[in-house]
């Protein structure tokens, strides 16, 4: 077991810069999720940790040992590849057993562990098949089984559940998390599925365009996004953003938005004092706004009235698109409700859940 430290990783592929300075500490036994949009450098980061790629700048440490230029075989890592990379000339059982046989594990122990992994991933019946006789999701499970049969110092998983059906994915999520906790292996897990990130990660590192935008617990990331990108990327539907001007009126600070104004709370005032007269970006999550009749009774909120533009009924939730002036606000209400498109609706939003970002840098003010 070992902690992993990434220091100032830069990686270029010709003209494209895949990583522009990645710093990340993964503690011993921790489960860290790399979350980010496609092409942001997640796989590249993982490959550098595995030793399959050398960074142009920066260092990788396993504990006190620098491993930046160590070949993969000397790092004792295990990896689930995004493309699975199961060996087509070996049966499923031999694929899973291969890492064990390389490590010269006694054959009866090999058999035992292969059986255990196959059961965990529900592929016991496929053990005698060749990979080309499997579906994509089955192949992916073989790749996961192969990665977990050994006891590596660091476990790297690149979107290991991306191709499974919803039911199996939910089950695998908890199985993998439980397994990781039990064997306590330091894990870096790549995904662009935020539910996966939120439910599995001890901490999440949100990446964008080759940089880490924020590292924090799932709660941190969700409640206190460090910048507009994280605020917008995490949470579904996306956070509502609108330009607003901080103005002073009768000695009180208010946020002047398009078609509404928001009186600020005391703690917010103290932070926003320096921004009087400036334009900022305000953000509020869809789930922090409520139709007036459904609002919690003691909610300290601001009322906004608009026209219902569109309603998505998801069964468990209802998503309302509300037109306020030029803007569309998206509101998420739990439960199934009926609203008439075109009618007026007044929503209350939870003032304490308001986010405010700088317009220039996108950094969070509140």
């Amino acid at each position: 077991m070992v902690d992993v430290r990434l220091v100032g990783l830069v990686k270029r592929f010709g003209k494209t810069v895949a990583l522009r300075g990645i710093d990340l500490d993964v503690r011993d036994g921790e489960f860290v999720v790399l979350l980010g949009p496609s092409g942001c450098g997640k796989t590249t980061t993982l490959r550098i940790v595995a030793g399959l790629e050398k960074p142009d700048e920066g260092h990788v440490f396993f504990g006190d040992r620098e491993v930046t230029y160590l070949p993969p075989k000397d790092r004792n890592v295990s990896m689930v590849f995004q493309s699975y990379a199961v060996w087509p000339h070996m049966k499923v059982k031999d694929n899973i057993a291969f890492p064990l046989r390389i490590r010269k594990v006694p054959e009866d122990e090999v058999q035992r562990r292969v059986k255990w992994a196959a059961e965990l991933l529900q592929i016991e019946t496929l053990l005698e098949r060749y990979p080309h006789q499997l579906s994509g999701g089955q192949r992916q499970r073989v790749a996961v089984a192969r990665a977990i049969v050994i006891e590596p110092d660091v476990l790297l998983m690149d979107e290991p559940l991306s191709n499974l059906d919803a039911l199996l994915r939910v089950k695998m999520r908890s199985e993998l998390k439980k397994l990781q906790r039990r064997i306590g292996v330091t894990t870096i897990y790549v995904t662009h599925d935020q539910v996966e990130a939120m439910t599995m990660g001890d901490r999440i590192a949100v990446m964008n365009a080759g940089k880490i935008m924020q590292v924090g617990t799932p709660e941190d990331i969700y409640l206190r996004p460090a910048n507009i990108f994280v605020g917008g990327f995490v949470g579904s539907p996306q956070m509502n953003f609108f330009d607003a001007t901080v103005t002073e009126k009768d000695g009180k600070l208010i946020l002047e938005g398009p078609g509404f104004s928001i009186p600020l709370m005391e703690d917010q005032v103290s932070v926003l004092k320096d921004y009087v007269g400036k334009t900022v970006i305000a953000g509020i999550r869809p789930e922090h706004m409520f139709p007036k009749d459904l609002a919690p009774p003691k909610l300290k909120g601001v009322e906004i009235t608009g026209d219902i533009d569109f309603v998505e009924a998801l069964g468990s939730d209802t998503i309302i698109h509300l037109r306020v002036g030029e803007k569309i606000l998206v509101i998420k209400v739990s439960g199934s409700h009926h609203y008439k498109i075109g009618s007026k609706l007044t929503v209350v939003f939870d003032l304490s859940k308001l986010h405010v970002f700088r317009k220039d840098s996108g950094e969070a003010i509140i």
Partner: protein
Amino acid sequence: MSRTEIGGRPPLRYYLSKILFAGIVLIACSWILLPIVISALYAFSTPKDFYSPKEVIPLHYTFANIKELLDLGAARATMNSVIVACMTVVFSFILGLPAGYAFARFAFKGKDSLKLLIIGLRMFPMLVIAVPLVTLYIRLGLNDTLLGVALAHTTMALPFVILITSSIFVSVPIELEEAAFVFGLDRTQTFLRITLPLALPGLTAAAIFTFIMSWNEVFMAAVLTLTNRTLPAFILTSAMAAPDFIKFAASFIMILPALIFVFIARKYLISMWGITIR
């Protein structure tokens, strides 16, 4: 725009195109098969049937022609050819396989120009280098030896082997090797346990091709040998003076290994993990 009638009779054009297709296939097949069939038939026909103007297809068959040919020295020449072809395959793979792997897997300066140079080597007519080569061989004591012929054939086959094996290795996904690295193998072990087995169907085909290339090569073999003739060189110099049915027997012996190889290889190639690497 073509009109398709759902449920109706297919248009005449459909039948015509089918017939045309069948015709082309027929012509292509007979183009290849007819000479083989004819030489096989005449190779075993008795001299009487062969010369009889009434019988286009001979009715009486015998092994005498083949036997006579073998006694003339074809047996030894066949043996020589097999040895030379095998040596050629071994040499050109020992030299070409690592080069092919390097071209497929590593990025290095001047890779493209080097590739071009290798193709360029094939453009040299053998005729140009034949005389200097003989002089050199005499000095080295390689003239009239099977090793000498095999080395010449290796030179001829090498560009092909390098380029083909390189494209075979390219077709083995690099992640399969990377997975092996991650799980603890070094490059050599990975090559032996992952890359090579996956490339084997392709490599086998390339080896067979190389074998046949050497088997068929006549010019260099004829120039470089005198007593140790390979089969084509032997036929060119000796059997051509013999009666026609002996020539047919000779051509049949020439074709035979290629045929056998292709049949074995076909079965082998298809049976190997369903031919698809994915």
